[in-house]
């Protein structure tokens, strides 16, 4: 069976959707965090697929930048989440809701 570029694009779209859905449905901050990573990596897969299909190295270079940005987001995000978890262990996103109106 021939696995063409569109298969990869569909797979990436599905992973992206899983990540987006997971972020909206799950309430554990760390799982929400993993969902964000899932979304970013789905985009990476899209970039690499297009890069190969267009025969343009640019798309693969972009993946480098996205990886670094994702790492920076991880560092900052984990810092924020741990700052909250430290004071109130076992918290879920629903409990962080003093601000509303």
């Amino acid at each position, binding site marked *: 069976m021939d696995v063409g570029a569109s298969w990869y*694009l569909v797979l990436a779209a599905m992973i*992206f959707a899983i*990540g*987006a859905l997971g*972020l909206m449905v799950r309430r554990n*901050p760390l799982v*929400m*965090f993993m969902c*964000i990573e899932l*979304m*970013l990596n*789905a*985009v990476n897969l*899209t*970039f690499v*697929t*297009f890069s190969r*299909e*267009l025969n*343009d190295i*640019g*798309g693969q270079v*972009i993946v480098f*930048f*996205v990886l670094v*940005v994702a790492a*920076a*987001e991880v560092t*900052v*995000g984990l*810092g*924020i*989440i741990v*700052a*909250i978890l430290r*004071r109130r262990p076992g918290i879920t*996103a629903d409990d*962080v*809701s*003093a*601000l*509303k*109106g």
Partner: protein
Amino acid sequence: MIAQVQAMSTPDVAWSALAPLLALVGGALVLLLVSTLTTAKPPRGAYAIITVLAAVFAIGSAMAIWDRVTDPSQGPYAAVAGALSIDGFTVFLTIVIAVGVALAAMLCDDYLRREGLDGPELYVLLLLAAAGGLVMAMANDLIVLFLGLESLSIALYVAAGFHRRRASSREAAMKYFVLGAFSSAFLLYGIALVYGATGSTNLVKISAFLSHNVLEREGLLLAGFALLLVGLGFKVSAVPFHVWTPDVYQGAPTPVTAFMASASKAAAFAALLRVFVTTFYAQRVDWQPLIAGLAVATLVVGAVLAIVQSDVKRMMAYSSISHAGFILVGVQVASARGTSSALFYLLAYTFLIVGTFGVATVVGRRGDAAHAITDYRGLGSRRPGLALVFTVFLLAQAGVPLTTGFLAKFYVINAAVEARSYWLAIVAMLSAVVSAFLYLRVVVAMYMSEPGAAADADGRLQIPAGAGIALALAVAFTLVVGVVPDRVAHWADRAVPVLTDKAG
């Protein structure tokens, strides 16, 4: 393969064009390094002064290239191998963002001492965020745009949670982080789809490709548009992507809120203008209805929900959403007139909102918590000067003539009428009427009701020097430009973005 190595042509670094960016990043690095390596306590306000100097230097060096880029014989150019585009638009937004960071730094100075958080970190974060915003305004390539957006956002996630002892500040940081990361993933996916449809992330190449080719897979490009709009819509807090705005604006330290509402919003609109209005101009029938829809929802929801708030910071968050609706009206017009009206709005709004949150910083007192509308009761008799300044900002936001707020709204609606978007102009005017009510509500609380029992419990409100200067500058700009707007409006007219890959 290794045998025949030839030196590659390296990108020409246009120092004059990069000077504003280098000033901000350099200021941040100097602050960080000097403050960590010296053990002596710095003189009062030294961090804020360095930050303001960096911002002033950025403004000065941006103005220095204004004549060159607006001169028809030389014109705009692309720097650093076509990654950044240097035109009047870049210069104008550099000034808007640098003004935002300078005024916010003045507010930070006393705020940090009052809250016992003194240190260089917040200034470093604000400077780096401003540098990211600058990169967004200059970006000539979608990936550069993404990197600028991330530098802006990541610095602001931390800044939002900077008041680490306050639970609401930590909560704001977490909400901002989760929703911000969510939106940037959408933006990135949009970039990927546009790249797939056009074969490049460079705005000049994308525009050239779209004008010379008929797309086989138009669906890909349209999906890319939609995702880019979602991502940027989050950043400008357009309805229905606004849910983070009230919580984050309310929970974040007030000077940081001032920065978010001014510089961060300006950078996001810069991206929207350069990507959609300039690059995808030929496809405007595809995206104009989307932005018009966003604008209507934003105008209505922002104005209506602002009325029912009892917390002034939260109320201003909703009002900033409705202001974003006005700017979106200018964006959807998709003409030079619309763009320059949006630019004028951004500059005017930067001074207005920093001033508004500046007053909130002062009234918030120790703990940064006294933001209920009842805390403003009787301010007119307790601190007449402060109340008067706040009245100016509120009336200007409501759009009272002789202020920049009125002119900003007038230019935007004028551009919409010229483009025959009559119904959009009508919605904008109705929204202005509705939101006038909420500004008046605060004014009434200040002048026509007695101060609450707790109001004078911890003494008279002090107006610190830094905040005082910031408020004075903001009031002066609002009134002076409100009366004689010609020069600033003329600058905004010449600051329309241009696509070019001409080396400088």
